[in-house]
């Protein structure tokens, strides 16, 4: 009997939770705010679904009820992706070590 592909996806999901658990515990507490903003950005990979939804119309009628929701989701996810990664970068650029030459 063949295994339902759902089981494979479930396995990936469960294992990723464990990976996430160990990876996040190793994040230094001083970077918890950037952690939140970067997780925000990467969870917007949901844009993948939004793009499929947006392109679901045919070339004569690009917009239908379903695709409009897709387009809106694309815009929302894009705000998050650009906003999330850029604000993370901005924050991380501020973390500096003590300058050696100065006391």
């Amino acid at each position, binding site marked *: 009997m063949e295994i339902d592909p759902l089981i494979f996806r479930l396995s990936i999901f469960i294992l990723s939770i464990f990976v996430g658990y160990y990876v996040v515990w190793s994040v230094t507490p001083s970077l918890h705010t950037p952690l939140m903003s970067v997780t925000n950005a990467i969870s917007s990979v949901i844009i993948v679904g939004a793009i499929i939804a947006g392109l679901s119309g045919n070339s004569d009628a690009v917009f239908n009820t379903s695709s409009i929701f897709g387009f809106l989701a694309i815009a929302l996810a894009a705000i*998050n992706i650009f906003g999330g990664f850029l604000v993370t970068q901005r924050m991380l650029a501020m973390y500096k070590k003590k300058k050696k030459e100065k006391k």
Partner: protein
Amino acid sequence: MITANLSAIFYLVSGVLFILALRGLSSPETSRKGNFFGILGMIIAVTVTFLSIGNFSSGFIYVLIFILVGGSIGAFIAYKIPMTAMPELVAGFHSLVGLAAVFVAISAFLNPEAFNLGNPGNIKLGSLIEMSIGAAVGAITFSGSVIAFLKLQGIMSGSPITFKGQHALNAIILISIFVIIYLLCSTQSSNLFWILLAVSFLIGFLLIIPIGGADMPVVISMLNSYSGWAAAGIGFTLENTALIITGALVGSSGAILSYIMCKGMNRSFFNVILGGFGATDDKTKNASKEQRPVKSGNADDAAFLMKNASSVIIVPGYGMAVAQAQHALREMVDTLKKNDIKVSYAIHPVAGRMPGHMNVLLAEANVPYDEVFELEEINNDFANADVAFVIGANDVTNPVAKTDPQSPIYGMPVLDVEKCKSVLFVKRSLSPGYAGIDNDLFYKENTLMLFADAKKMTEEITKNL
């Protein structure tokens, strides 16, 4: 057009890159590279999606337009936002992830053929379950984050909103969500799908209103976690590995942060979720408010104390963020260092309105991160330090947490500020902190209260040094 197998492999690659992005955050040195991995993963995921659809018709142009519009709004916000407003920003971004998940689920429900999920009215059972869970969690994330955002912005009062039968009502609504999902799956009725969304929006709203302003670090982390589970739910629907991996990562990340925050307050997760903390009845508060002598001083006294110290520990809190005093503080510390005084910073896990909030503010003010320490790292040093400079923090320094089993914050890990030879406490008044209790530290012999705005006081001290 590329094959489904090839695109699945690329999605896996982008999932791995996202793991590396989080892994990079284990130290500030590797973090910038980590962020780059994250961006790379996102570019791969989006490109592969375009290639696998292979439909570069007029719709494609619109996709680019919407990405561009959203992207420029996001970039604009990212550059403009002041660091003190990070909690609001993150709450706002969470709401967008939630809403995007809802929209994708709606789109998939209306047009399942586009996603290979069956036909309208006859969607594959598994997909329908995954889709409804994704949509419900997304909706909860959205309305919950909106409330959190409003509370953080001060548009909505930060005090908990409670009413009779609140928990019972929430429980009924939560159970009804499961019932609706069950009915939806057996009838495929689109009306039920809309009802499910409406009820989920409602419960997100109801779940967050009873939680007080001081518990926002937990709420934000929790919503962070929810946004991850919502993404994972949609990932199962779309059979997309990148989304499933990311959803799991974000979900567990938010859960861990909530746990750390709860531990920092010595409260159980459920205690926070059920809310109402900080709303301790005012009667008892006023009754116990006896007049006790307090030593207060001015900038001159503070400067004198610090000038004669050999080591100073700074304890920043949310008040510092409100007064935007981080830059003034750093200038003061620079002056101290010129006088060969050793200065370090002590950060409590729940200082500020979100995990790591204080660290970002200090980094913004050019404080090197190796001078900033977490509670466990620095707590023993207070006994050897000459001066503790408490600026904008309150409850996290209250020794009552160690001495009085009756206190609501008993057992909460606190900074041992009182062990310092002298304590300087910058505060606007003697009013209690969010826990609604008096801070014993105010009345200690070695405490000098500096009643002023944090920024003004710090600037004045610098002048007097």
